[in-house]
């Protein structure tokens, strides 16, 4: 039947057109674009940067305790130059013989001659700019093999071969995705177990104590820094200890602090800001400061009131910065006056 054939043909054409049209309506799928590109991008951004410039007067009272004239070399530590700090020598009462400086320390060397019992003030004036900063860091890669092998070993104060520390590091830090997260975990671990106790530097080996089956970190800022460096180095993070001054007791645009040598030992001004903290090295960001707050862990977040005097990475001598060192003379009094330079 011809009309039947027409109907069948029309139905087939309609069905065919419907299928072709629907094929055009289906969105062709291209190879999927990476939806998680943001989760893979290394990010190092400054969320905040604030610089402070100070005139720094370091005054040292030198004394010859012997009964004859002494000619001696006097070593004066000054704030060290690094990515967040810049120091410029302005003047001093004596002309320095030379300046010793490397990546870790900057020392002015003077030749001083004093007769029997004589005293003298050695004044050094410097211009120091310190940058406070807050870094935002994401997806930071771990160090490469040669950096891990060369720069994460132990030293006198950093007990990277201590079995307890290895076990702690394994338990808390191996699971960290990136070095910043590992440092945060280590910092939190120290903060929760800290028993603050001021005293001479003990080193990481003696800072860890066990009480009632639990581990604690006993000590002051130096032990915190040493334990942090020990644990992070076990985890393959390059880290070091910083010694410096924290500016406390701001009055009318200046901070004055002092150390006095007495027969009983040393006396310090109430606002004495001798401090130690740590830094971790990230190739993308350079040396990043780590500081333990009372309630938090701060990584890449430091105010411009921390003045760095020495870094301890390769060497392990000296439990702190002596600020002034002589062989045969005595440094009886050291004054540090920081005066803010108005912007």
């Amino acid at each position, binding site marked *: 039947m*011809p009309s039947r*054939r*027409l109907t069948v*043909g029309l139905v*087939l*054409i309609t*069905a*065919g*057109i*419907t*299928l*072709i049209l629907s*094929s*055009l309506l*289906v969105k*062709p*799928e*291209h*190879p*999927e674009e*990476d*939806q*998680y*590109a943001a989760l*893979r*991008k290394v990010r190092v951004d400054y969320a905040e940067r604030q610089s402070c410039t100070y005139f720094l007067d370091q005054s040292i009272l030198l004394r010859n305790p012997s009964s004859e004239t002494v000619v001696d*070399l006097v*070593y004066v530590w000054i704030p060290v130059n690094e990515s967040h700090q810049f120091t410029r020598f302005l003047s001093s009462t004596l002309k320095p*013989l030379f300046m010793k400086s490397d990546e870790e*320390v900057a020392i002015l060397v003077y030749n001083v001659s004093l007769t029997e019992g004589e005293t003298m003030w050695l004044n050094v004036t410097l211009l120091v700019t310190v940058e406070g900063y807050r870094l935002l860091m994401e*997806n930071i*890669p771990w160090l*490469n*093999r040669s*950096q*891990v092998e*060369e*720069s*994460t*070993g*132990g*030293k*006198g104060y950093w007990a990277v071969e201590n079995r307890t520390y*290895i076990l702690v590091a*394994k338990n808390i830090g*191996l*699971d*960290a*995705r*990136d070095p910043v997260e590992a440092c945060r975990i280590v910092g939190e671990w120290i903060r929760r177990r800290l028993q603050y106790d001021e005293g001479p530097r003990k080193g990481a080996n003696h800072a860890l104590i066990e009480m009632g089956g639990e581990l604690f970190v006993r000590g002051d800022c130096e032990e915190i820094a040493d334990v942090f460096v020990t644990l992070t180095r*076990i985890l*393959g993070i390059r880290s070091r200890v910083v010694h410096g001054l924290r500016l406390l007791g701001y009055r009318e645009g200046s901070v004055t602090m002092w150390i006095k040598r007495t027969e009983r030992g040393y006396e310090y001004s109430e606002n004495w800001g001798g401090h130690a903290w740590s830094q971790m090295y990230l190739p993308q960001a350079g040396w990043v400061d780590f500081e333990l707050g009372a309630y938090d862990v701060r990584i890449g977040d430091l105010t411009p009131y921390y003045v760095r005097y020495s870094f301890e990475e*390769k*060497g*392990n*001598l*000296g439990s702190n910065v002596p600020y002034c*060192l*002589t*062989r045969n003379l005595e440094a009886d009094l050291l004054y540090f006056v920081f005066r803010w330079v108005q912007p």
Partner: protein
Amino acid sequence: MRILRKTLLIIILALTAVPAAFLIKLQPDYHVEINMKTGFERMVMLKFDIFLKTISSSVPLDENAYWPVVADYYKLRYPSGWIEAMKLLSREDIRLLNCPVNPPCVKPPYAVNEADASDSSAFTLRTLGVALPKASSRLRAKIYESKFLNSTSTLLVTVMNTGDDEGVFIVILFEKSFEQARKVDLKPSENASVRFPVHVPEGEEVVVRIFGGGEQLDGCKLTIGMKKPPSILPLVLGAVGTIPMLVGTLVILSHFMGKFRKHASLQEDGPAPYPPS
């Protein structure tokens, strides 16, 4: 004894960045002497053997020439102390070619004050017919599992110490942009998992390797995520739709052809004859 230990540690640090791996042997006649011929107080004199292979600062110049650098850590950290004199004695088959010092203005080998003492000295040694032994590692480890997490932005690698010795292993992730290494201490039969942030996009290949004692112990290649093949649904629908459309067209055409043919034959035959009466 305390001063001896501290001095030994400084000597070790002067020669190596990895004190634990350093081999030093004090000779039986070592001694601490005060008021030596130079007249300095608190002078310490030590005699010791150093195993050249364990000097991490040693740079091999060629097959049998080495350049161990000795840094003065006294001078670096406490400038009022320094290594006053160094005397190098070696086996007959090791010859000292030269000894440049840093900074060049200093006056070794006997420095009577800090300014005269060198920060570091480099000894160029030629070892005639002596081959330094290659450290052989007995460490064994396997990559037990590698998987991507967090929408493939994290790689989790589980490694296992398959040897009989405890040791430090280094797990490395090689990406196009970064080489990342993680250090892990494992006892025999112990396993541990480490994580890495992944930086290359999906579809790229990364390589994971594990090293122990300076040797590669295991490795594997991984592809991040899986690329979806382009969808064939529109093509199939189009093809399937074309067939009924063609068939339908043919059917309609045949319908009209039949109709046309019938119409034409009617015209050719003329009017039907009347039946005979």
